[in-house]
């Protein structure tokens, strides 16, 4: 195949991967700390994206600037959701939590369907169509910006986890719940904070995705499987894994579409997911069980 | 020898949980495996019953090499274990729990349930057959573990601390039950910390410390074995005694 096309596919894949990494990092944090498989992750992203959409169309707020609003709002939403619903209702059992987050995702998706109707929406800003030359291809500026910001946010999150007291507390709870409680860490508060951060990343991701994607009430499905694949591939709870996993998944989708066509190309992600679970469920960087 | 364990070694990371352990169990006996906490007793059980892969060694049961066989096959061959931390079928009743064991021997429901009831009577649980297992006390759960395993009509029962958490009268009851089980033809290998029970029940005792078998013999032999005492009370305790004796002797000389 023409090297230009291959290069374009590679670049596209990596840029896409950056997005997936950001979406997945919230999921991997939530799993790593709370051991919850947050099935509602996709529908939360969808909600956030609608938020960005309306911020632009109703209030004229640029999607990238909207991060200032979306991130704290999603954080608070996540914190409250944990305290009010998930923490209280799951009765501790692993499978119950999965079912509850499934229930939530159904609920959220269909409330959105009721409110916003089923059509897709896209946004366009002044720089939507500006192209930047990157090697042999032309890349839309928003994609590039989104990629750069996504990686910067992942790095920031990583630093936060490593360098701050709160980050250390979160990592302690993730590693050893009982021990953390014994040294005086308020574990339940850490759970709520972690869930909040997990959703806050979605707030940021929504701002970065809206300029290059579309939103409709059902896109949650799409992102859930992708996010899970990234997390499982990279290893539940591992940030480095989310980065590497995101890139691999992005490239797979890009090359899948290239070689197998629009429709069949989507199969790559599901196949990766299946293969990882069958062969190496702990993922590339996850803790060996 | 009904059960012959030879040179069994189990390594976790850098830790030798079980180190070249060998032991034998004669048919129709009650044999005890004792040792200080952390000695590796439950790990040894898990290896023998097929729950953990061995790093080295061999397990022979009824003349057959069962090393590495899957758990359920070993259970079907007649070796059934109970768990130190009880694992009841929580949402099933006591009767149903025991019936699962009974279904090993009887595929007919009526027969399995009748057998389960008989076993329940044997271990003194007949009055709680309809109770959900999740509502049992610790003592009840221990008894349920025992009953469930017994219902499979095993040749060899591996009992892991079945008396832990029981009060003295419950312990006496269990001792009688275990004796009766043996008298009915089931061989018993038990891990136990309740010393007087071990002494009164066992025909033969193996002692495990830091993963190694350090002694074996009749209860009397084991109790007077210096290495065993040291394992439990710490090295130097017998040496101190000797010094104390010598000093006392010197003083009184």
């Amino acid at each position: 195949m023409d090297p230009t096309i291959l290069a374009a596919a590679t670049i596209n894949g990596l840029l896409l991967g950056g997005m997936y990494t950001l979406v997945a990092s919230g999921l991997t944090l939530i799993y790593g700390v709370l051991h919850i498989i947050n099935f509602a992750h996709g529908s939360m992203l969808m909600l956030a994206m609608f938020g960005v959409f309306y911020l632009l169309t109703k209030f004229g707020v640029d999607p990238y600037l909207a991060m200032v609003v979306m991130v704290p709002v999603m954080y608070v939403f996540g914190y409250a959701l944990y305290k009010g619903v998930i923490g209280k209702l799951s009765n501790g059992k692993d499978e119950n939590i999965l079912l509850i987050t499934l229930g939530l995702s159904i609920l959220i998706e269909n409330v959105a369907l009721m409110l916003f109707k089923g059509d897709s929406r896209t946004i366009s800003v002044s720089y939507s169509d500006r192209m930047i030359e990157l090697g042999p291809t032309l890349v839309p500026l928003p994609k590039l910006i989104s990629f750069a910001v996504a990686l910067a946010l992942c790095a920031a999150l990583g630093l936060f986890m490593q360098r701050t007291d709160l980050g250390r507390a979160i990592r302690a709870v993730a590693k050893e719940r009982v021990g953390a409680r014994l040294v005086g860490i308020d574990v339940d508060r850490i759970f709520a904070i972690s869930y909040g951060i997990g959703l806050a990343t979605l707030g940021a991701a929504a701002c970065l995705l809206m300029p290059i994607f579309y939103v409709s009430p059902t896109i949650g499905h799409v992102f859930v499987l992708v996010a899970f694949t990234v997390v499982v591939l990279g290893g539940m709870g591992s940030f480095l894994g989310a980065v590497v996993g995101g890139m691999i998944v992005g490239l797979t989708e890009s090359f899948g579409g290239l070689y197998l066509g629009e429709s069949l190309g989507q199969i790559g992600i599901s196949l990766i997911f299946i293969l990882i679970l069958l062969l190496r469920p702990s993922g590339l960087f996850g803790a060996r069980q | 020898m009904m059960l012959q364990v030879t040179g069994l070694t189990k390594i976790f990371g850098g830790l030798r949980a079980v180190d070249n352990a060998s032991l034998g169990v004669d048919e129709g006996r009650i044999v005890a495996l004792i040792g200080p906490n952390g000695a590796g007793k439950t790990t040894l059980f898990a290896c023998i019953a097929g729950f953990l892969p061995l790093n080295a060694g061999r397990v022979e049961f009824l003349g057959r090499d069962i090393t590495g066989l899957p758990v359920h096959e070993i259970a079907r061959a007649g070796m059934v274990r109970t768990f130190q931390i009880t694992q009841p079928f929580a949402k099933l009743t006591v009767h149903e729990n025991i019936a699962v064991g009974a279904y090993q021997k009887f595929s007919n429901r009526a027969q399995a349930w009748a057998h389960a009831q008989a076993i329940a009577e044997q271990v003194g649980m007949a009055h709680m057959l309809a109770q959900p297992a999740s509502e049992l006390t610790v003592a009840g759960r221990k008894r349920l573990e025992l009953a469930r395993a017994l219902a499979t009509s095993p040749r060899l029962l591996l009992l892991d601390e079945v008396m832990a958490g029981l009060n003295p009268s419950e312990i006496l009851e269990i001792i009688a039950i275990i004796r009766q089980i043996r008298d009915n033809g089931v061989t018993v290998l038990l891990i136990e910390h309740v010393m007087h029970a071990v002494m009164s029940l066992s025909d033969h005792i193996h002692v495990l410390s830091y993963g190694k078998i350090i002694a074996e013999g009749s209860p009397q032999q084991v109790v007077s074995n210096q290495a065993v005492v040291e394992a439990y009370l710490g090295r130097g305790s017998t040496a101190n005694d000797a010094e104390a004796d010598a000093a006392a002797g010197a003083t009184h000389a």
Partner: protein
Amino acid sequence: MTSTLKPVPWALHLTVLAIAVVFPFVFPSSFMVNFGVMALFYAFIGQSWNISGGFAGQLSFGHVAFFGVGAYASTIMQLRFGWSPWLGLPVSALAGALVGGVIAVLSFRAGLKGSYFALITLAFAEVLRIVTNSVSFTGGGLGLLIPMKASATNFQFAERIGFYFVILMLAALSVALAEWLRRSRFGAQLAAIRENEDSAKALGINVFREKVKVMLISGAISGMGGCFFAQYFLYIDPLVVFGVDKSVEMLLVSMIGGAGTVYGPLVGALLLASISDITRVLTQVQGLSLVLYGSLLVVIIAYLPNGLIDLFKRRRKPAGGQA
């Protein structure tokens, strides 16, 4: 997730069957008969999920894989090979069982349990959806249309009531199967596996083999559901028969009604079909019924984890009953 292995009294079975048989004669309107068909349909495919998810404890998010395979297998046999549509039932059962078996062997050999198993079934269903969407043999994204030719020998009925009795028979069979599980050794072993796999193994149960068996059975039932669906609606496409919605509905119906019980799926199906029809009649708002289902699921898991059937049970026992 469930109650005990207590058999359901025959009187109850006969009563429910009698009501079901009489129903379309008491309420002969097209609307009501359709309601009956849909309720029984969801009870049937819900029971399929219930057998592997409720009885055996293997939570699945991808049951639609067996459903869709059944729908496509029977439809393709009919359209491309001219087989009688009635043969579609055994064909779809086999297809569903085959896929169930393959997924089970792969997943359980790899030791997948709980949430991981749920997610991998989702991925398998997705793969099937994508493949059928992309391949011309299955009609691709356009799906397959079964030509209307109403006649009993063609497994199509001019009068809905024909379909009603077919699905009633299927649903009754699934209830019989569930009842058999309650009374049989196999069912007791599945319950043991659900509650504690290690203990089950220690008592001599070949956990892997039994889990595969239950997925074969569950797959077969879902497959037959797919065949029925195809004959009733005369149109299938990848999104409808492999989309995640059906998986969710199968799960919802069982969990809300009572996973691991014999009539849980029927109770759940009646509720869901009612909600669906009522919301559709009262409002034009899309998605309202699913909002209600989602909320119900959350509420049930939180406060009534044994499902709605528990409400009936609690009324029978005296308050604070002693064992």
